[in-house]
């Protein structure tokens, strides 16, 4: 009666995993041949995967539409920037700064979660949007009378990630192979991303994950079954915020510079787009969505700019504008034609079949 879970994993799954592992291991060197900027793109893609996975917990697992998610990314980034840069003259090690960023981000997550818990879907979305913007405005203005965030100029010369003597930001030569800063960062980000994926998978198939699903399906029934929906929702916010904070800290150390511009509403919406387009609640789908939507604009830029220059002699259509325009269309089209996303979870696929049979 106990089912398929206990069967041994088939050989082809192991082979597939091995193949993916090999690809992931050599990817930066392959891309490096096309130029270092592609490795940077890849690194940002990994950051977006982390963010998308974090938002997925809030939106996909628990069903709470958070439009201000980028605020946690901002908190994580600024904490790193403030504790590990010349700004305050602090250069604390990563094992102090990272946890500090995580704790503060999680705290903000709970603070944000508390007031919004009773709100209906669309109101919750607007309030979270408001919070996200408030955080950005504060980041932008807390340079007077006491200079905390250095305002619109941001904080620069932020310390890079350092483990003992091993510095991630600098290029080095190992056994005759030259490894650049971005390449080193790739492995760090990959490791953290894999860790986050692992945690998400574990959470999904646990008592907590089921509680989130219950709330998403029918909150009143969930309460009647003894689930403390307030605490469980707060947990979703806190977990999502934690991942955002981690990504933020890594971002700050990698980029070496933080400013409020990187944390706009557009970014929140972009991450939401990744989750929605990829497949809300489905971890592989969300990863694919994040990779697609972070890599595609760069590909677009690489194609569109030279194309326009050769045809028109100048760039008429701003590639950023095209990117956001396509995002907009993607959101609309996905919601109308495939709201469960490109790669939906089994639950969502069932919802789709239900919809189709009723139509």
């Amino acid at each position, binding site marked *: 009666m106990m089912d398929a879970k206990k069967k041994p994993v088939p050989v082809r799954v192991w082979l597939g995993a091995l193949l993916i592992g090999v690809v992931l291991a050599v990817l930066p060197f392959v891309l490096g041949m096309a130029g270092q900027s592609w490795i940077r793109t890849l690194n940002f893609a990994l950051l977006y995967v982390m963010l998308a996975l974090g938002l997925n917990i809030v939106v996909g697992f628990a069903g709470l539409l958070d439009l201000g998610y980028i605020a946690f990314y901002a908190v994580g980034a600024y904490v790193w920037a403030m504790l590990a840069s010349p700004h305050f003259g602090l250069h604390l090690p990563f094992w102090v700064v990272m946890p500090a960023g995580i704790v503060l981000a999680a705290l903000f997550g709970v603070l944000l979660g508390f007031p919004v818990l009773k709100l209906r879907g669309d109101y919750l979305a607007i309030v979270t949007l408001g919070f996200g913007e*408030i955080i950005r*405005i504060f980041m932008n*203005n807390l340079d007077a009378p006491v200079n905390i965030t250095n305002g619109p100029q941001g904080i620069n010369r932020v310390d890079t990630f350092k483990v003992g003597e091993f510095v991630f930001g600098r290029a080095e030569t190992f056994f005759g192979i030259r490894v650049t800063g971005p390449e080193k960062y790739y492995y760090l980000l990959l490791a953290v991303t894999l860790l986050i994926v692992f945690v998400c998978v574990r959470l999904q198939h646990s008592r907590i994950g089921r509680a989130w699903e219950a709330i998403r399906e029918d909150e009143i029934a969930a309460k009647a079954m003894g689930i403390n929906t307030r605490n469980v929702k707060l947990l979703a916010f806190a977990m999502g915020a934690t991942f955002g904070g981690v990504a933020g800290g890594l971002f700050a150390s990698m980029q070496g510079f933080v400013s409020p511009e990187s944390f706009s509403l557009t970014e929140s919406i972009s991450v939401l787009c990744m989750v929605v387009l990829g497949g809300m609640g489905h971890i592989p789908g969300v990863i694919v969505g994040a990779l697609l939507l972070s890599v595609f604009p760069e590909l677009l830029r690489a194609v569109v700019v030279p194309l326009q220059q050769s045809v028109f002699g100048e760039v008429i259509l701003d590639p950023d504008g095209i990117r956001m325009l396509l995002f907009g269309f993607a959101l*609309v089209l996905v919601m109308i034609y495939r*709201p469960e996303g490109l790669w939906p979870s089994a639950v969502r696929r069932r919802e789709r079949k239900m919809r189709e049979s009723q139509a």
Partner: protein
Amino acid sequence: MEILIQQLINGLTVGSVYALVALGYTMVYGIIGLINFAHGDVVMVGAMLATTVVLSLVGADPAGMSAWLAVGLALLAAIPTCMAIGWTAERYAYRPLRRAPRLAALITAIGVSFIVQNIAMMVWGRNYLSFPHIIEPMVFQLGEARISLLQLLIIGGAALIMVGLMALVHRTRLGTAMRATAQNREVAGLMGVNINTVISAAFLIGSALAAVAGVMIVTYYGVAQYTMGFMLGLKAFTAAVLGGIGNLGGAMLGGLLLGLIEALGAGYIGDLTNGVFGSNYQDVFSFIVLILVLIFRPSGLLGERVGDRA
């Protein structure tokens, strides 16, 4: 005291604009339960288009054309354009989702907002457009405070429009149909109301109001830019919620009130906080008002209590 009256005047002016935009939000929300994220961007298009029209008419020869004519032509261009945008969004993006969960419609609205914003950016660029100073800077004294011709026009114009809208909603067949649809869509349909027409009408009217609001805003502040829709839209939405979403009178009241709160807040915040927070935190007010209202009194000032049933 003079400052107070001055702030009140300023607040009423901006508040009138908020009210016009809030009406658009509240009409749509009242009928189909959607927060039309893209509404603010429609206002922006109205503002940008009006500026472009006036610039091209007047740019060469500032004294040559009557200000009234220029603004009139600007309105003539802006209103149909905005109505077209609103109609298109409803017809192709929102109508297919009428039976879908609310979050799907909200996400779609965000998508539409992005589309409108970025098309505007590609058309007009990222720079600010300056509205030429063609309106007479005539000023009237009210005791120690002053009210400009423009402010009078805005407050008066908005008031006239709001009266007209109330007349439409309460005295015409279309208005009755709209109110019926807002109360109970299915039954209204069964009673012979063409739901699609009513909903389209709500969007058309709302967008027309948005166009007028856009023209007002750009003549008042003198600048327009493709990102202006977001903040403005959010504030107007706050106004609609403050007054009671779905309630036309509420939208008007909320708009005026929010304008006043903002003006007074910006005016006095420096004094209140001993210079710690300046008027650059002005936008935060609206957000805080929004959050407080949604948490503590989601039905707004004039709305009905919204209960939760098992």
